[in-house]
């Protein structure tokens, strides 16, 4: 039986493409804002575009924080995409205003400093050799569109008995985090659902980890 993937519908993001991309690589995908449906699916995708603060409001309305916590306790995979990745961090700063994120990882989402912003287009990434998500697409380019990013990985107190998170970097005006793989919790700053065959392969790699 094909794994089930729920795409969290909280009013933000081109959710249709995320659903179709998951289906394209063989999952049974549904768009849902229902807590139990999203809790029980084999995989949960958190999409997101636009502003961090607005997305957090949307996430709070569907109890997204509690939902992700519950999935983590059960070891059930979650994949954040774009702002859906950013809100997994501690906080976001937009126009000088700080908004609390879900705090799954320490770190701050801040404005990119580059001559041309937004960072819009196809860029390469540097995944760690043991990456699951990037297996077979290590040298491909992925489609980014964002003005903010996490530019420093600050997690220090990793439990020595656990695998430390795998961090994939990219560069635009300076290094920023393009992806994190941390047990059941994964996230990408780019849009795999818009990154052609490379993106579909990455989604397929993630879906292969679902049981």
């Amino acid at each position: 039986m094909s794994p089930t993937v729920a795409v969290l519908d909280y009013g933000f993001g081109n959710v249709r493409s995320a659903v179709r991309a998951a289906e394209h690589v063989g999952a049974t995908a549904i768009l849902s804002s229902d807590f139990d449906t999203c809790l029980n699916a084999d995989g949960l995708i958190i999409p997101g575009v636009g502003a961090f603060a607005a997305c957090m409001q949307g996430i709070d309305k569907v109890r997204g924080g509690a939902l992700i916590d519950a999935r983590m306790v059960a070891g059930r995979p979650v994949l954040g995409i774009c702002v859906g990745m950013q809100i997994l961090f501690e906080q976001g700063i937009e126009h000088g205003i700080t908004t609390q994120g879900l705090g799954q990882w320490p770190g701050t989402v801040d404005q990119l400093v580059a001559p041309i912003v937004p960072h819009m287009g196809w860029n390469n990434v540097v995944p760690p050799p043991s990456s699951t998500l990037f297996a077979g697409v290590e040298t491909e380019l992925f489609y980014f569109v964002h003005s903010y990013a996490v530019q420093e990985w600050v997690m220090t107190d990793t439990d020595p008995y656990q695998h430390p998170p795998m961090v994939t970097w990219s560069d635009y005006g300076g290094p920023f985090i393009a992806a994190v793989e941390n047990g059941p919790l994964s996230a990408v700053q780019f849009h795999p659902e818009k990154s052609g065959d490379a993106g579909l392969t990455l989604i397929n790699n993630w879906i292969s980890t679902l049981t």
Partner: protein
Amino acid sequence: MTLAARVIACLDVDAGRVVKGVNFVDLVDAGDPIELASLYGAAGIDELVFLDITASSSDRETTLELVRRSADQVFIPVTVGGGIRSIEDIDALLRAGADKVSINTAAIARPELLRQAAQRFGSQCILLSLDARREPGQPSGFGVTTHGGRESAGLDAVQWAQRAAEFGVGEILLNSMDADGTKAGFDLELIRAVRGEVNIPIIASGGAGLPEDFAAAINAGAQAVLAASIFHFGEVSITQVKNALKADSIPVREPTRLVS
């Protein structure tokens, strides 16, 4: 690590069908935008623009259906432009699966639409489509036009681009009405003039004739290059354009065919 220059194809769509004659040999249905979009995807295009030239508003639903089908089958970024007048129009297109929308005439009449759209949906999905032409009376020497370049909007093109960027627009689709259709190369003076004053991405459009033309536009300050007929008629291939860009040391995306 460097961001790749994007090569974009534009498809003119009327009532859900591609118009302006497309001349691909392998096409089963030359008018089907989705089949064309898939072919371009396989050929390595980085992004697609559907320009809706539908005259009647009753055909709007057809366009939305096209965008839905596109989102189901095409996994690269898609921008939809043409006839977008309101927040409701933008909302409907984004919900249907468009990644970005481009706003042209409606923004000239009501610039506030750009600010509202960027605030509500995010800068990343709002483009300003700017039809510019040489106009000696304007400070930059370039004016904004409407009606396919036939009428002056009475605005300076560079100042209009700056204002749109301040309103939160994420990208400018810069169409040169002087170069459009000439195949004599992109309007490098126009690209330089706008690049000198705005720091959001620019898509250069109008005038592409040879593969070498594209590198000149990127070197003049554009982040992306757009063409329509020369791609559709097979005069220049996506691969030729990317090879010419690479020959000029400009990074491009050369995807590997990975999954069927």
